[in-house]
């Protein structure tokens, strides 16, 4: 189910603006990969290119090759909608659908995939996904209440439940904890640990400790200089990154001597 991702020579543009240049990396299946780096260096941009969410923005485009388990995501015959069903995404700000109940939120992605689903199958998926997102016990008595009525941390876990309900191969998370308190953050970090056994996970974070805690491998992005495109400076196992990085820039950033 989980799949590896090969990124080679990727340049990403917003219109004429080259935001990220020359990215090469291999994201292993069933592992957690963290992207770190200063603001504006293109972490979100690269992450969004992994499920073709990038091209939702008018004028945005990707050059190079991104291959998920042998399939080139940007091959002309590939439908971006199909890609996004395989590669799920959790955003920085929790964004449950405001007009839907908790139950409907979880099931919403599945409704797209298979229109017909009997009630007991749907119930099963909802419970499994909410348990998977560590939210079941908190919401099982109010599944029909609006999702927007939950706390921020609960909403974010609801979004994770929604994303895993469709059983994607890969889960992308863009700063999933940045709007959350430490307790919700720790709940989500635990969750990422558990999800790792089934999914390939890529997470963007500004929190060094978080990257060190949850990830197996880390990519450090940086800008050569202001106005220049962002690039991947170093990509290594997290242990090595945080103890003995190859690049001095990585060490400077991780130890906080550098913005």
């Amino acid at each position, binding site marked *: 189910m989980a799949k590896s991702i090969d990124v080679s020579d990727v340049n990403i543009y917003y219109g004429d603006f080259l935001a990220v240049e020359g990215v090469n990396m291999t994201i292993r299946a069933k592992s957690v990969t963290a992207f770190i780096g200063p603001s504006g260096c293109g972490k979100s941009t690269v992450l969004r290119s992994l*499920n073709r*969410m990038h091209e*939702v923005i*008018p004028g945005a485009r990707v050059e190079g090759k991104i291959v998920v388990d042998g399939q080139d995501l940007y091959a002309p015959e590939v439908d971006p*909608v*199909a890609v*996004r*069903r395989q590669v*799920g*995404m959790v*955003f920085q*700000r929790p*964004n*449950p*659908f*405001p*007009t*839907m109940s908790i139950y409907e939120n979880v099931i*919403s*992605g599945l409704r*797209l*995939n298979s229109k017909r689903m009997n009630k007991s199958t749907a119930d099963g998926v909802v419970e499994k996904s909410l348990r998977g997102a560590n939210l079941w016990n908190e919401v099982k008595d109010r599944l029909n209440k609006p999702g927007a009525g939950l706390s921020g941390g609960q909403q974010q876990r609801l*979004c994770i439940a*929604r*994303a895993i309900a*469709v059983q994607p191969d890969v889960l992308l998370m863009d700063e999933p904890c940045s709007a959350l308190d430490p307790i919700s953050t720790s709940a989500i970090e635990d969750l990422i640990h558990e999800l790792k056994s089934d999914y390939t996970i890529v997470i963007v974070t500004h929190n060094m400790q978080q990257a060190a805690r949850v990830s197996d491998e880390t990519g450090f992005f940086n800008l050569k200089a202001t106005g220049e495109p962002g690039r991947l400076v170093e990509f290594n196992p997290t242990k090595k990154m945080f103890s003995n990085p190859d690049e001095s820039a990585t060490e400077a950033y991780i130890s906080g001597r550098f913005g």
Partner: protein
Amino acid sequence: MTATLDEKSTDSSLSGKRPGDAIFRGTTLAASLLVIVFLAGVAIFLAVKGAPALDAGPENLRDKANVFALVGALLFGTVLAAAIAMIIVAPLSIGLGLVISHYAPRRLAKPVGFLVDLLAAVPSVVFGLWGIFVLAPRMQPVHEFLVDWFGWIPLFAGPASGTARTLLTASIVLALMALPIVTAIMREVFSQTPRAHQEAALALGATRWEMIRMTVLPYGRSGMVAALLLGLGRALGETMAVAMVLSTTGVITSWNIVSSQNSNTVAAFIAQGYKEASPIRVAVLIFAGLALFALTFLVNFLGRAIATRGTVKG
């Protein structure tokens, strides 16, 4: 909503002493008071001048027993015509609004939006002429068709009018006239859908249409209702087009919108009748005007109320 209100009040309390602010506040206050006074003045004028109609006899009321029966029949026709217009406008404006806000590439969306806005600049006399000379002849076969196949629906009971200058044709003209404003509001409502929700749907693997069904339409529901109500308000009061297109003269209450015996609307009734100016008949017309004023006011009020409730909730 509350946030902006708070901001406003703190702003003015902080800077209320500056002369520029005081002048600005004074003029805006005066202007808004003027509007209210003016509206109240219109209402009072209509009430005073229309009051004699209460004592009018059947000879001045198109053979109705009292003025309420007459105005009631006219209001029925008004609401019927406007409602049918809205039934036509709803899918058109929602479709156009979505095309402009979500489907068309930006290069195309602009001119399409502009074209629709241009429709609003066409004078209603022109719409009326177009209704009589262009639309009605083409609608005649449609009338026959509706009566033949859907005659069992009271609206299409027939017999089909030979000229097609019916309430149905008038409603279509009304629909075209209300289309620009309704489409403009729809477009605005749709483009307010938060990006985060739209991206959430797309990231789940929704197609564009599925994304619209999951986020844009439910999020904009109250805005869409408000847009239609505001359009309804416009259609209710529209005079020239209906007065020109509709060939009816009598005042009847009828669901039938395809025969030559149609209900009439208040505005058209007034436009057709104001020349026969005996004082009591003028009073009857003014009374009808008062009823229309109240109805339009109510519908617009409702539209605004729903619109604000929607934005607060969103």
